[in-house]
């Protein structure tokens, strides 16, 4: 770990902790060019961060697939909602 830290420092690269704090911004493609480059170079040299990033990205992709886990609006719910509103005095006025 000491050697890895030394090598990252010599190469002018961020620490694992800094790289971890960049994950969400990197996923959103919102890192500044310089930071993105340093992030990617760190990942190429660090198997822990590389594995962690892969798992983080997989997790986000699996969560995004929840969209396909259909929660259908019950057929009558919109009409019931409108009836609910119309029956309320503050709406009906």
């Amino acid at each position, binding site marked *: *770990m000491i050697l890895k830290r030394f090598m990252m420092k010599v190469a002018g690269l961020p*620490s694992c902790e800094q790289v971890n704090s960049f994950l969400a911004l990197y996923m959103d493609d919102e890192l500044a060019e310089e930071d993105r480059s340093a992030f990617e170079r760190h990942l190429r040299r660090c198997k822990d*961060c590389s594995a962690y990033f892969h798992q*983080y990205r*997989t997790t*986000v992709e699996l*969560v995004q*697939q929840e969209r396909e886990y259909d929660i259908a609006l019950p057929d009558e719910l919109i009409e019931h909602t409108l009836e609910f509103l119309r029956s309320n005095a503050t709406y009906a006025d």
Partner: protein
Amino acid sequence: MPATETVLDVEALLGGSKQEFEKLVRQESPRLFRVIVRMVGDDDEARSIMQETFLQAYQRLDTFRRESKLTTWLYAIGINQARAALRKAKRTSSLDDQDVERMQPTFTKGMFAGSVDAWSPLQMAELSERKRLVHDAIAKLPPDYKEVVIMRDIEQLSTDEVAEALKISNGAVRVRLHRARQTLRELLYSHIRE
């Protein structure tokens, strides 16, 4: 924009037009219902929360500030209603803030404290097949984290929109989302390494 979506006359709506408000109800109900169901985990409860959300929105039209989108403002009301329902039912998530903290990676002098084992192809395949695992993991998150994941990662609202709906900064949205994703990663990992 879905094919059924019609253009809302926001000025008329804010002026109290019931016709325009009912267009909003028809247009936004599917997504609002999905968000609320995912928050409270119960269809029947989500129905009444959604109805109450629209009623509150109508009653509070004069509080709408035009710097945010009308739909974002509506989600803010829905999220608050869902939170209130969870509090009233004293229903707690399986995880609390301490659990979330415990599931964040740890570092020693800036470097990973332990080694991170890559997920095997078999573990990856298992995760893809067991979709219920992801669904259940999201349901376990504390409300503050769950609502960010639902709005940002599932419903794909922008960071700005989530920040407006939750009345927090963009930075706070990113921090919560990051911590939530790391917690979800840990929950999924705990299943596939068993």
